[in-house]
């Protein structure tokens, strides 16, 4: 297991390095580069700009700039927000929990529902349920998340008045119940895509596993159907799903951004959008790098989980 994990760690570090280079490239794609913010300030002269450029080290060769930038990032100095001069990491950190809560709750919901639909579809292959589930999943993947959000708001908030229109809390009410009440709709909306993908892969995995010899052995032992399905088939079918979960992270983060926008949920996605509006480059870049970092960490975590869960890797 250690060899496997070390290998994955090494791969992740390599990717992290390439990610940082891409990030740096994106940073310099901004018109005027990092100076853009200042070019908009009235009263700036060329001399002022040149001075700031020198201060920021922008007149040095690119590789050196990259190295400086990387050094600061690794030390935890991700710059300061143009808006309130707060350290970028602090700003991101403040918005991170909200996004994580949204992502986790939505994923839990999606995994439970998706597993159920996928397993049932595999057990009742070619039944009406199966076809509906398959077609439904494809349609669900085609629905723009934000539109689904608007539809949900219209249905549940405007027409039925069951759920709040947005935000995290009702003003004056900070209770947990209120929080959950506000979390339901965005979590549901974010879960849509995950349920669709998860159920399709779950079904496929179950079918693959069901034709394996050890399932035949389990049936030959005369075990109850429930035991065969859950203990023998499902346990093995879930293995590749762990890897899938890791691969779904970028999609999930993107979906979170859109969902947070529609439901005015105060997470990283909202922060990102606001920062784009303000052209707050340090925060924009910080968030871009941060999400990539989250993806890498998430995939490592998935690999770790896989290594623990599969005895063939765990005990090697």
């Amino acid at each position, binding site marked *: 297991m250690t060899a496997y994990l070390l290998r994955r760690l090494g791969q992740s570090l390599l990717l992290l390095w390439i*990610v940082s280079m891409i990030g740096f490239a994106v940073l310099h794609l901004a018109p005027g580069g990092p100076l853009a913010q200042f070019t908009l300030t009235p009263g700036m002269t060329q001399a002022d700009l040149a001075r700031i450029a020198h201060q920021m080290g922008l007149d040095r060769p690119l590789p050196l700039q990259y190295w400086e930038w990387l050094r600061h990032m690794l030390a935890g100095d991700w710059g300061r927000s143009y808006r309130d001069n707060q350290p970028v990491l602090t700003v991101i950190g403040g918005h991170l929990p909200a996004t994580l809560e949204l992502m986790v709750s939505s994923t839990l919901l999606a995994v439970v529902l998706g597993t159920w639909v996928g397993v049932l579809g595999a057990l009742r292959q070619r039944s009406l349920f199966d076809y509906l589930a398959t077609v439904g999943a494809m349609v669900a993947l085609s*629905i*723009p*998340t934000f*539109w689904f959000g608007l539809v949900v708001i219209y249905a549940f908030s*405007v027409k039925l008045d069951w759920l709040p229109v947005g935000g995290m809390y009702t003003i004056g009410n900070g209770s947990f119940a209120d929080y959950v009440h506000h979390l339901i709709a965005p979590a549901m909306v974010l879960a849509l895509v995950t349920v669709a993908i998860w159920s399709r892969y779950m079904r496929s995995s179950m079918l*693959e596993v*069901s*034709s394996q010899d050890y399932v035949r052995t389990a049936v030959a032992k005369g075990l109850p159907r429930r035991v065969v399905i859950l203990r023998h088939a499902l346990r093995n079918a879930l293995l590749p799903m762990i890897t899938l979960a890791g691969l779904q992270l*970028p999609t999930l983060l993107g979906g979170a951004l859109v969902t947070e926008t529609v439901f005015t949920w105060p997470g990283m996605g909202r922060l990102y959008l606001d920062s784009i509006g303000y052209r707050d480059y340090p925060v924009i870049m910080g968030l871009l790098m941060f999400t990539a970092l989250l993806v890498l960490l998430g995939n490592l975590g998935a690999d770790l989980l896989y290594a623990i869960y599969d005895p063939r890797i765990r005990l090697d």
Partner: protein
Amino acid sequence: MTPASASTELPLPSREGAGGAGPQVGGSPPVAARRAGRGVRRFIRHRLALIGFATIVVLALAAALGPYLDPFNDLHIDILHRFAPPFSGPHLLGTDQLGRDMLARLEMAGRVSLTVGCAAMVLSTITGTVIGVLAGYYGGAVGAALMRFVDAMLCFPSIFLLLALAAFVQPSLLSITVIIAATGWMEVARLVEAQIRSLRDRDFAVAALALGAPDRTIMFRELIPNAVAPIVVASTLNVARAILLESYISFLGYGIQPPVPSWGNMLNNAQEYLTTAPWLAILPGAAITLAVTGFNFLGDGLRDALDPRLDVR
């Protein structure tokens, strides 16, 4: 905000599942029994693919020809009749906050969204194919470096990357198309690289090499034609993805800018009017969903028809 369909990157041995048996698995039904099940599924899939294709054709025709047949011009502002609900009056699908005819607007927006989607697909397919072929053919350090670059690009959520790029450039049809393409070529590259890598060592390619054909010829004449199937499938699904992405960034305000209509930016203000004029939000979204579903169904059917081994179901 999705890979237009579950992508092929997962190391799942993609199979449709053996015979008709679930966990109540049977002995060894002959291969023919399994083919029976698959045939039924494929027919259904074909039906879906046909529906998808038909949907796309209808939408494309409506977008292209509709504006010539509409009684109302999409730019015609008529404050007196604004917020007319669909099916209530002369405006078939109602009017928006400025009294513009929704049907006409949807059709004009369709032109933009569909064109951007297809154009972005072409760009990302070309880019992805080139990189994939180079990586797959040369292999070794070059191939590995290229594929690691692809992996790293995939670490960035598309929307985040798109928005950052969109904020940096002057939003125009061309620039939006380019940046959408810039975030969509990776899947194609992966697919092509895998395909080329497996084809490279096959007899016909080795023979060409032995005959002294230059690399370029081998790549273009021998290998790419055999990789066409997954490219076609990936491209179709890519259009779906591109249309979705365009709608996302336009909705967020950083994509196609008004007055140029796109399905995405028609939804820009829709949230404000959700209580009073829900059709402003529902109609463009429905159009996007229809188009994306159409391409997804079509792509899925193509995948099944061209190479069942790629099937992930």
